[in-house]
């Protein structure tokens, strides 16, 4: 372990994710969701009042500017419009992370305006999208939904989850998203978890596939002037991302100001939506108390995977050890390197190990 030299006290986060439900009408092969495998019932979710009490708490205790409502599929909650209204009333910007299949004209009308819809589009080919989403008809419903967002003049971000099966479809899929009014694209390479690692050989894109995809996205950003965010960390030891100057790359915010702490359907707090570690419960506890004092947050911030120690200092400063939440998911500790790196054939790079 090596200290990254973080300074205290830390500024408070400005973005949060609230997972309103673990119920989902898709069964995505690549889903990393911690609750995705569990059969949770309606009674396993916070009530509307409990959700709004947590939003109030975040408003009082933090510098929250954005709240993303996620799941599961958040449109399965009937009270979604009510929760959105409350968020707006607090002066917070809402985002909905959705598979898009329930975005009927009525549901869009009940949630627009001033909300950003992040909708997953896995391919321009229905059969590819449906295969990855685990449900026939998912593509058609998502495309209908995205068109409904455009029709209602809503803000649309198209999310492409890159796997071995759909990498080749990226360019046309991105262009379809642009045609449907997407103002931004998000590219996420499949992120590994204990739930989806069984499909890694079949689904995890190779470094070469990702490199080709980034070139395509860089060109699309130039050609169409569209914002492209690469959100799930692509460790620069796997692909040197510095050459793609028109793309915005996401790095682990190390549970600091730029982080997006995540609240699950029961009010439990996690460092991010990929982390499996429960830090406390916001229905009963203070966010600030957890944020400043929880020992796991300190460990998470200060840990650099041992495999990263010999890495180039410039890359290390950029990447900060990659997705430690994925390592926590797959190995039960953030001290190990993101399994994406290992499975890409890069690691382990521990001195003396090879």
């Amino acid at each position, binding site marked *: 372990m090596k200290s990254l030299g973080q300074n205290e006290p830390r500024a408070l986060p400005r973005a949060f994710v609230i997972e309103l439900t673990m119920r989902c009408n898709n069964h995505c092969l690549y889903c990393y969701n911690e609750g995705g495998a569990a059969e949770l019932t309606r009674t396993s979710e916070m009530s509307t009042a409990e959700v709004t009490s947590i939003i109030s708490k975040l408003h009082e205790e933090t510098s929250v500017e954005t709240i993303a409502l996620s799941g599961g599929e958040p449109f399965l909650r009937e009270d979604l419009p009510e929760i959105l209204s409350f968020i707006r009333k607090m002066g917070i910007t809402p985002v909905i992370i959705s598979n898009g299949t329930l975005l009927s004209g009525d549901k869009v009308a009940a949630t627009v305006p001033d909300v950003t819809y992040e909708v997953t589009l896995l391919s321009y080919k229905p059969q590819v999208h449906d295969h990855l989403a685990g449900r026939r008809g998912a593509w058609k419903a998502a495309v209908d939904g995205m068109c409904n967002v455009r029709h209602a003049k809503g803000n649309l971000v198209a999310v492409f989850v890159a796997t071995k099966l759909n990498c080749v479809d990226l360019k046309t899929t991105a262009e379809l998203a642009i045609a449907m009014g997407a103002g931004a694209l998000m590219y996420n390479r499949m992120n590994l978890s204990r739930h989806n690692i069984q499909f890694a050989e079949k689904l995890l894109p190779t470094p070469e596939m990702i490199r080709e995809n980034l070139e395509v996205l860089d060109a699309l950003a130039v050609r169409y*002037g569209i914002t492209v965010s690469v959100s799930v960390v692509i460790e620069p030891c796997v692909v040197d991302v510095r050459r793609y100057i028109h793309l915005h790359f996401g790095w682990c915010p190390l549970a600091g100001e730029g982080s997006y702490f995540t609240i699950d359907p029961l009010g439990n707090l996690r460092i991010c939506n990929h982390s499996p570690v429960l830090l406390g419960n916001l229905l009963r506890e203070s966010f600030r108390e957890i944020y400043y004092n929880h020992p796991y947050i300190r460990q998470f911030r200060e840990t650099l995977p041992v495999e990263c120690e010999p890495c180039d200092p410039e890359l290390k400063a950029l990447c900060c050890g990659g997705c430690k939440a994925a390592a926590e998911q797959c190995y039960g500790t953030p001290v190990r390197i993101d399994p994406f790196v290992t499975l890409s054939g890069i690691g382990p790079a521990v001195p003396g190990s090879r």
Partner: protein
Amino acid sequence: MEKRPGTGTVIYKEGTYFLEAEGKTHAIPVGAHLKTAQLKELVGQKVEVVFSEPTSFVIGLVPVAKVGGRIPRIICYFPADPWAFGVVEEAARVGLAQQFLNQGVLSKENYEKLGTE
């Protein structure tokens, strides 16, 4: 920069690059997303200001003159909100929608929902 100027000029002064627009200068931060070499080529040239707000702005990285007056769509964000939306030209979007309609990817009903502005 409360109101978005159409263009600005990149200038270099005492080791720092600035955008000069509407009589004001704004330092352009150089970093991972924007290299000194890119800015060096733009010094003295007019660039498009894609958008601006009180604390951040976005400029095109191709001189306006170089593309014959057509607004360049190569942009760089700093330190603008990464969720900021792009500026896809409506004609380009409509052209793509038409193409997907012709290929049968988009239904007529959805194509009509997308509309034109």
